[in-house]
């Protein structure tokens, strides 16, 4: 096996708060191969965004610290890099796209100027070369009439076009890895689909690996190859998208999949009795981790006594799919016993 492009090992990102240390990211590990697309899914407060920000060390605030782990990018640990080295990496070999395009664009500068700035800074191009590459970048993200758009100010563009410009900025220096944090959440559905298709095309054409941070399983289903499900700062399940979506193993993943309203393919007719959605009771906890045990236990339909006290083990099921759960471990142990019994 060749070395992955990105390998995050046992990442710990903590926030100091009045309530104690909040372990926003608590021992997260995952790989992204070259050209891969990993979906990092979870609800608000699960730590998915903080994971993305930790990779680029963009946690500006004083009360956030990366307390442990390694972030190996192309074989080098980003956590040992100096601030100057990180600046060269950000927007260079790793870049990031955020939810709100307007916060990534400067309202006072034309689109072209902003692209040229990034290109000259990272690649030391002449103005003329940078202008040419800026135009290429806009063509890459399929903005209609790119020559004219270079002269536009951000407010003159539609929401979808602005997000395309942000993607163009992120891709201008041909990064190996793009971290996209809810890039389509603020967009209309039809525009969301276009941006997702654009990211897929870029992934295929340029081989850019993507870490897609999202709360939306639909987005994961349509663009990611692998998925990691986060809950209270930890990855509770990961695997190939097809496996995790078809046969989710962790009770949280199962609940999440069941609580999304789906489009029905069959008509229901008038006067039918309305089905209730499956509902996960309660709400997600703050990841303070004052005691051992599974953070999902208070909301889990399959909870047992050990779930409250002992950290659950990681259980493999099938090719690369793993869930962190006492119940699945039990089932697997029981199955193994049966198999051995039959074998004997």
């Amino acid at each position, binding site marked *: 096996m060749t070395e992955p492009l990105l390998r995050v090992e046992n990442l710990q990102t903590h926030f100091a708060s009045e309530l104690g240390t909040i372990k926003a990211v608590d021992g997260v590990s995952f790989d992204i191969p070259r050209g891969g697309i990993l979906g990092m899914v979870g*609800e608000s407060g699960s730590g998915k965004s903080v994971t993305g920000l930790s990779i680029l060390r963009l946690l500006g605030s004083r009360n956030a610290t990366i307390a442990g782990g390694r972030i190996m990018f192309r074989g080098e640990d980003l956590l040992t890099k100096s601030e100057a080295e990180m600046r060269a990496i950000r927007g260079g070999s790793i870049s990031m796209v955020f939810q709100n395009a307007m916060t990534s664009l400067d309202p006072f500068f034309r689109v072209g100027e902003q692209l040229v700035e990034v290109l000259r800074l990272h690649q030391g191009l002449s103005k003329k070369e940078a202008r040419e590459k800026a135009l290429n970048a806009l063509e890459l993200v399929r903005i209609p009439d790119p020559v004219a758009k270079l002269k536009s100010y951000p407010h003159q563009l539609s929401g979808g076009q602005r997000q395309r410009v942000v993607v163009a900025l992120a891709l201008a220096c041909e990064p190996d890895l793009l971290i996209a944090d809810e890039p389509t959440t603020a967009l209309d*559905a039809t525009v969301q689909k276009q941006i997702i298709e654009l990211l897929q095309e870029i992934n295929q054409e340029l081989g850019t690996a993507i870490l897609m941070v999202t709360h939306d399983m639909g987005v994961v289903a349509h663009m990611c190859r692998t998925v990691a499900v986060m809950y209270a700062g930890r990855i509770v399940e990961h695997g190939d998208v097809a496996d995790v979506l078809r046969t989710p193993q962790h009770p949280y993943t199962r609940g*999440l999949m069941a609580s*999304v309203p789906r489009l029905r393919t069959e008509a229901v007719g008038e006067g039918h009795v309305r089905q209730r959605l499956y509902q996960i009771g309660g709400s997600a906890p703050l990841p303070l981790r004052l005691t051992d045990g599974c953070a999902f236990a208070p909301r889990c339909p399959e909870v047992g006594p050990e779930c409250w006290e002992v950290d659950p083990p990681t259980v493999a099921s099938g090719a690369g799919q793993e869930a962190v759960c006492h119940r699945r471990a039990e089932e697997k142990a029981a199955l193994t016993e049966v198999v051995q019994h039959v074998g004997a």
Partner: protein
Amino acid sequence: MSGRDVLVQAQDLRKVYAKPTLFGTGEEFVAVQGATFDVLRGETFGLIGESGSGKTTIGRMLLRLVEPTSGFVGFDGHDVTRLTPKGMRRLRQRMQIVFQDSGSAFNPRRAVGEQVAFPMRQFDLCPKDEVRDRVVDLLEHVGLRADQADRYPHEFSGGQRQRLGIARALASEPEFLLLDEPTSALDVSVQAQILNLLQQLQEERHLTMLLITHNLALVQHMCDRAAVLHHGELVESGPVDDIFHKPQNEVTRRLLDAVLEPVAA
């Protein structure tokens, strides 16, 4: 459905905003035009559209929170568009709204119980010494605890605030509830809780609901009939089954095509 029992009626609703310019008002912007539809008593009607399609403007015109430029709104036989302020006040008790971000619709400096009680006092719905009990009943009914009545809005999570918004909307015992993107700011697991709560309340209280949303799966899950909006105009309306299985309009088809189902390819 035999004998159409119409509760809310919109007829040829139109809203034109004048775009302000440096020198007063300039060209006009048509936010909504020609919107005609009925909401039947006891049903959930969906208004579907992307941002800027006019769905929120229509909703607000039904409650006369936005004054229509022309057209007619009927509510249980009353002409909402021509009611006097006093008549309108009486009618408001019967129609309420739940916003996307109910947190911002609460005063941060007052205990939430007081605010849920406000419509009861406003419309003189029960004796003063019973208000507190009624508030507690309502809070428990929407899945909150009695002791939370004395807390302030910032002490609640997003899902709990939406429960508060629903409790306050129900305080005046309305027949009609306008839900403007009630779950789009919520996490999936919390959305399911709120949707189930709304369905339960509708069954118990025989509420008529209008659901404004851009989420088609939500409309199919919640609504009996719906209308699709595009650039301020109704492009298609009818029973949800028809809209989803036999879409007649290109806009509807495009919206359906853009739904990303959480299903492995």
